C-alpha cells in the first residue's frame, strides 16, 4: 500500500502475509465455502495476536499502532486480506473497536469488556449502519427513540450486514432526533433477529438483521461527538475496504500478467499482442491510481485532515468503478478458464465484486462528492 514502510510496518505486513499464506490457500478457501461462518475462529484469535484488531484503538484503551498512523498500519493487513481473498470480519470488527476506543470505555463496564474481547480476538463485531438524513450510501433503516432511564429503543432492519450472523457484538449506528447514535449490544440480546444470507464471496458472510424494539441501556450508548464519529467510522470502513480491494486487484493482475506470458496462441505468447499489452497497461494504470487514492485517503484520516471524508469517497468512487473493470478484464484475457470454479481468479473477482456496493456504491459516493463540491462552492 504505502511507499516507504517502517521496518515495524514491514514486519507486520510480512507476518500477516505468512499467516494467510499458510491458512488461506485457495484449497482451504474452497473448503470453507461450505462452512457457515466462512472462517475458523481460532485463526481470528491468532490474527488478533498478530495485531489485526489494535491499530485503531489508543494505547490507553488496550490498543496501539506500530507507526502512530493506525489506519495506515491496519490497511497493510487489509491489503493482505484482499491479496489472499481471506475470510474474517476484519472491517466491521475494526470499525467497532475504533468506535469503542473513541469513547472512554472505563466509564462503562460493558463497553470496556466488549472492547477487550474485540482486541483479544475472542469476539467479532458486525456493524449496522444508518445513513445521516439526506445521505444515501446504502445505509439501513434504523431509528432510535428515548426509553426509560436514559436507555434508547432501536427498531429497524439492516438488509445486508457483513458477519452479521456470527458476530458476538453488534455496533448499531441509528438515527435519532439528536442525530446519529452508536449503540453496542450483545448480539444474542432479545429483540435481535438474524438471518444468514448467501452472497457473492466464497467465504465472506452476510446476514439480514432485524431489531424489534431493542432496548439499549444508557451505558451501552455512545453519543460521542455527533456526526463526526459517524463520518470517521465510514472513512475507516471505506479505506479498509479499498485497501482490501487493491490487494485483490493486485493478485488478479499478477496472475493475469503471468498468464499472458505463458499462454500461446497462433504461435506467440498472448503478451506479444499489442491489444493485450495496451489492456494490461490500462489495468496497471487503474491499479496504481487505486493505490494512490486509497493511500491518500488513509493518510488524510490518520492526519485528521478536513478532506478525509472527501478522499475516502473518492477512493470508493474510483476503486469501486475501475476495480471491477480491471478484474473482469483479467477474466476476459484468461478466456473460458477464467469463469471456472477450479481457477483461482474468481476468488478475487468475488472479493472485488463484493466491495462494490459495500458502504455506499461508487455512484452514491460520486453524488456525495458532488454535494461536498456544491457546499464548498456555495461557501466560497
Amino acid at each position, binding site marked *: 500500500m504505502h*511507499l*516507504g514502510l517502517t521496518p515495524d510496518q514491514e514486519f507486520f505486513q510480512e507476518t500477516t502475509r505468512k499467516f494467510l499464506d499458510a491458512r488461506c490457500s485457495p484449497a482451504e478457501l474452497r473448503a470453507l465455502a461450505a462452512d457457515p461462518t466462512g472462517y475458523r475462529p481460532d485463526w481470528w484469535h491468532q490474527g488478533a495476536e498478530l495485531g489485526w484488531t489494535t491499530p485503531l484503538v489508543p494505547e490507553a484503551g488496550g490498543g496501539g499502532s506500530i507507526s502512530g498512523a493506525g489506519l495506515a498500519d491496519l490497511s497493510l493487513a487489509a491489503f493482505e486480506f484482499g491479496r489472499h481473498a481471506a475470510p474474517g470480519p476484519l472491517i466491521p470488527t475494526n470499525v467497532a473497536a475504533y468506535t469503542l476506543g473513541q469513547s472512554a470505555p472505563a466509564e462503562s463496564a460493558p463497553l470496556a469488556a466488549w472492547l477487550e474481547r474485540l482486541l483479544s480476538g475472542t469476539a467479532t463485531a458486525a456493524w449496522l449502519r444508518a445513513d445521516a438524513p439526506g445521505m444515501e450510501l446504502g445505509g439501513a433503516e434504523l431509528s432510535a427513540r428515548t426509553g426509560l432511564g436514559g436507555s434508547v429503543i432501536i427498531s429497524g432492519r439492516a438488509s445486508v450486514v457483513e458477519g452479521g450472523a456470527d458476530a458476538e457484538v453488534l455496533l448499531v449506528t441509528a438515527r435519532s432526533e439528536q442525530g446519529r447514535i452508536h449503540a453496542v449490544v450483545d448480539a444474542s440480546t432479545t429483540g435481535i433477529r438474524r438471518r444468514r444470507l448467501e452472497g457473492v464471496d466464497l467465504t465472506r458472510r452476510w446476514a439480514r438483521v432485524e431489531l424489534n424494539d431493542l432496548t439499549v441501556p444508557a451505558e451501552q450508548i455512545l453519543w460521542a461527538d455527533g456526526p463526526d464519529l459517524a463520518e470517521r467510522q465510514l472513512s475507516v470502513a471505506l479505506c479498509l475496504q479499498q485497501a482490501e480491494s487493491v490487494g485483490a486487484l493486485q493478485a488478479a493482475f499478477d496472475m493475469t*500478467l503471468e498468464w*499472458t*506470458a505463458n499462454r500461446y496462441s497462433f504461435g506467440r*505468447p498472448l*503478451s*506479444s499482442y*499489442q491489444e*493485450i*499489452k*495496451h489492456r*494490461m*497497461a*490500462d489495468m*496497471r*494504470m487503474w491499479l*496504481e*491510481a487505486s*493505490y*494512490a*487514492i486509497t*493511500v*491518500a485517503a488513509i493518510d488524510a484520516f490518520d492526519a485528521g485532515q478536513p478532506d478525509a471524508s*472527501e*478522499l475516502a469517497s*473518492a477512493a470508493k*468512487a*474510483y476503486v469501486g468503478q475501475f476495480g471491477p473493470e480491471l478484474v473482469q478484464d483479467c477474466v476476459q484475457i484468461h478466456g473460458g478458464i477464467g469463469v471456472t470454479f477450479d481457477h483461482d481468479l474468481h476468488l478475487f473477482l468475488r472479493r472485488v465484486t463484493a466491495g462494490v456496493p459495500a458502504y455506499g456504491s461508487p*455512484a452514491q*459516493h*460520486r*453524488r*456525495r*462528492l*458532488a*454535494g461536498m*463540491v*456544491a457546499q*464548498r*462552492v456555495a461557501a466560497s
Partner: protein
Amino acid sequence: MSGGLAGAPPGTEDVESFRRRARAWIRANLDPAPPGEAGIGRARSDERELARVARSREIQRALFDAGLAGICFPVEYGGQGLSLEHLSAFNQEVAGYDCAADLQIPTFTPCAAVILEFGTEEQKRAHLPAILRGEEMWMQFLSEPSGGSDVAGALTTAVRDGDEWVMNGSKIWTTGAWWADWGLCLARTNWDVPKHRGLTVFILRIHQPGVEVHRIEMLNGNREFCQEFITDVRIPDSDRVGDVDQGWTVGTRWMFHERTAMGGGSPYVVRPAGSGSAGLVGSGDSLWPLVVAEGRSQDPTALDLVGEAHTLALVGSALTPRIGASMRSGALNDQASAIARLYSGTRSVRYATIAYELAGQSGLAWDPEAGDPGPGVGYLMRQAACIGGGTTEMARNVISERVLGMPREVSHDRDTPFRDVPRGPAAG
C-alpha cells in the same frame, strides 16, 4: 556566478528557512495567478501572448535576483543547488501566485535539463544562467511532419562541413517558436546506419536566416504551435550536444525529462501546488458553476458527472506524487512516468466530455460578448490531451514493455540502414 543573494550561502539553506524566505519574497513581489491562461485549450491574441512572455521573463529575472530561480540547478550555473524538498516547499508557497509556471516547459525541462546533462562546460555556462535569468526561452525541435510518435525516424539532416554543420529539414509542434529564442534540435547525421544510431542533437538559434517559422492554426483558433522550415542553416560544431551519431542517447533522456515534466515531479520546473495538468485543474468545483447555470443542481445525472470528474481530479493529484516517489525510491523504474501520462490524458478526455455534457446547449452556442467560448470548443480539442507530449498509445507501449516487461513490438527498421527503411509517399 552566484544565485543566492539573500540568506544562507547557496546550497546549504535548510528547507524551513528557505521556505520562510521564499514566502516573504513571493508575498511581496508576485501577483495572483492569472486564471485559465495555460494550455492550448483556448486561443489568445498575439498581443496577450507576447505580453505574457514578456511578463514571464520579468518574473524569472526577479526570481533570479532574489536567489529563487533554478532551485535544483547547480550553483555554478546560476541555480540554487538545493533539493527536491526545497522545490516542493517553493511550490507550496507559490500556489496561487503568478510565477510564470505556464512557460517553464519546455525551457527548463526538457531543454535546460538536457543541456545540464549532456552539454559541454561552455554550453552550460553560455545558456543555463541566461535561461535562469529569463533571457533565453527554448523550444523542442523534435517532432517532424513525417512522423509524430516515431521520433527517432527524424529526416531533418545535418551534414558536416569543416567546423560547421549544414542543416536542412522541417520540425513541427514547437509551441511558441515564433517568440522563443533557441531550439534543441534532433537531426540525422548518418543515413547509412539503423535509425537510432545516426542521430545527433544540436543547439539551434531560432531567429536566423534559413529558419522560417510558420504558425499552425489549431481548430480552436489557437496559434501557439509552429512548424519550422530549415534551409542550409549553418551550425557551429560547438553547438552540438553529445557525441556525433549518439543523439538517441541524448534523445532518450530528453524524452524522459519531457515525460517527467508532463507527469509532474521534475526537479527543474516550478509547479505551484494544486495546479498543473495532474493537479486539481478540472475538479468538480470548476464544473459546479455550469451545473448551477443550467439549473441542474438537483439532477442526479449532473451530480454523478460532477462527482466523477472530481474523483478523477483527486486521483490524479494523488497518483502523480506517488509515481514520482516510487521512481525516486526505485520501487518503479523511470519509465513509470508513462503511467501518469496515460492517466492525465485519459482523465482530460473524460473531463472534456463531462464539461460539454453539463454545459448543455450553452456549450454549443454562446454570446461572444459574454466571455470565452464554453466547453464545446474544449470538447473539439479533447484528444489533444492524449496526443501532445507523446501519445497515450506510446505511453501504453512504454508501460507494457518497460514497466511490465511484456515483449517489444516487432519493428521493421531496427537493423536496417535508415536509408533503406520504407517510408510513406508523403515523407519523401
